[in-house]
């Protein structure tokens, strides 16, 4: 009896530590906030443009992820080519890459002196760094793997007999994808989209490295939090709380899948 209790404590204690590790910082954020002053701090001239830019760029990121990520997920899920596992591993790389390294890589590719960026500047006169487009590039780079992996997982769970059946009824692969596959994996797409969106919203390292930091143009909410921490810490906390609230809402939307 005694040993059972000890064994139980051996599990309960580390579990409590884990809960503390995750919740203490968030509670501290709530405790340190100047609640009465929050409306005033949110009126700080950098806060609203930063939230607006974050909303705009993350929404664009989501649309791009859906347009190019869904077909990729489908091909990865159904391909039997022996290179497919390697391709899957490659698209996962940005998931584990430190974001600031992603930012450097993006500069080397699309910067003014970059591999692609130099040609883009010469031919079209476009320079991507320091623009909202650069923010979207950075966000797509870090968020797309989340989307692809989540959607591919859902698609792999889809019985291949559905595709076969659709094909015998004369549906083209495109039509099968559009009218059979996508509707059937809609929950997977929704959770992939939520994950990708949350990752894009939190993007910091690649953005500050590749897009820079200019209020209203490339200063997203996380960058504004970082900058405000030195000039107006309460504004940083207020903006952090807004982002915390958004994260909780996203989690709530995923409740059906993850929180049972």
């Amino acid at each position: 009896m005694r040993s059972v209790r000890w064994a139980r404590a051996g599990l309960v204690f580390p579990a409590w530590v884990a809960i503390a590790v995750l919740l203490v910082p968030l509670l501290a954020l709530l405790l340190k906030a100047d609640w009465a002053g929050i409306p005033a701090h949110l009126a700080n001239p950098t806060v609203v443009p930063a939230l607006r830019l974050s909303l705009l760029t993350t929404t664009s990121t989501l649309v791009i992820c859906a347009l190019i990520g869904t077909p990729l997920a489908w091909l990865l899920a159904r391909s039997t080519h022996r290179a497919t596992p390697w391709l899957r591993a490659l698209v996962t790389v940005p998931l584990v890459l430190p974001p600031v390294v992603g930012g450097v890589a993006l500069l080397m590719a699309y910067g003014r002196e970059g591999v692609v960026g130099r040609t883009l500047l010469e031919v079209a006169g476009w320079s991507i760094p320091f623009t909202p487009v650069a923010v979207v590039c950075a966000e797509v780079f870090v968020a797309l793997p989340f989307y692809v992996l989540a959607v591919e997982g859902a698609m792999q769970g889809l019985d291949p007999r559905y595709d076969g059946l659709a094909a015998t009824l004369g549906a083209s692969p495109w039509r099968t994808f559009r009218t059979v596959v996508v509707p059937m994996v809609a929950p997977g797409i929704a959770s992939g989209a939520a994950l990708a969106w949350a990752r894009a919203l939190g993007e910091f390292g690649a953005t500050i490295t590749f897009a820079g930091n200019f209020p209203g143009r490339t200063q997203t909410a996380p960058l504004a939090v970082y900058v405000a921490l030195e000039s107006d810490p309460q504004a940083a906390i207020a903006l952090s709380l807004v982002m915390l609230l958004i994260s909780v809402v996203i989690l709530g939307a995923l409740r059906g899948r993850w929180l049972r």
Partner: protein
Amino acid sequence: MGRVAAGVAALALALGVAGCSAAGGTPGNGPTRHTVVVLAASSLTESLTAIAKDFEAAHPGTDVQLSFAASSTVVTQVNQGAPADLIALAGTSAAGRLDAKRIVGGSRSVASNTLEIATPPGNPGKVNAITDLSRATLKVVLCVATAPCGEAAAKALSAAGVVAHVVSYENDVKATLAKVQLGEADAAIVYHSDVVSAGGRVRGVQIPASVNQTLDYPLIRLTDDPTTAEFATFLLSDQSRRRLRDNGFQTP
């Protein structure tokens, strides 16, 4: 309820023991190795790195640990309890926010610095004067306004009556300089020392003395540790002053 309370108490204890001890480790009290932790303005990167090597070579058994950030960030870190023996800041304004309780002894100026425009070596934006920075086709990068380099650049620009065409405000002076070194920005306002330290990787454009800003670099001791005192004295030695001058600083 009782179990919850016990759990909370247990984990508070665990965090106190396990979580925070990793960050502690009061420097300078090891029996064999004498460590000096220095937090410094990023403009001091090259010169302090060289000076720390000189010191370690002259004082076997010592270890000078350096960390560089914008002076405003250094002050925030110290106020939040970062373990440090010595800090060196760019300009005196950042020190105003420093928690007075952490200061041991007075502050001494180790060097001074002025502003300069940095451009890529080829000067693609054809920047030849501070007044050129207002051109709308130019990509100008400054330090963020909270960092001393950003504060000083804003003063110089306003004294010159120039509204620069800024595309980004970077966290510290080295991040600002990096955008020029990478060729992404046409010009940046950094310190003269940064242009000197960068060697041929950037080109310097003078800012006239009438609008330029001079920043003193105070050295502030946070501990009474003897090795720290020794290093602080060493920073004012002729050898260290030469290092600072080699990197474009002026010394007292």
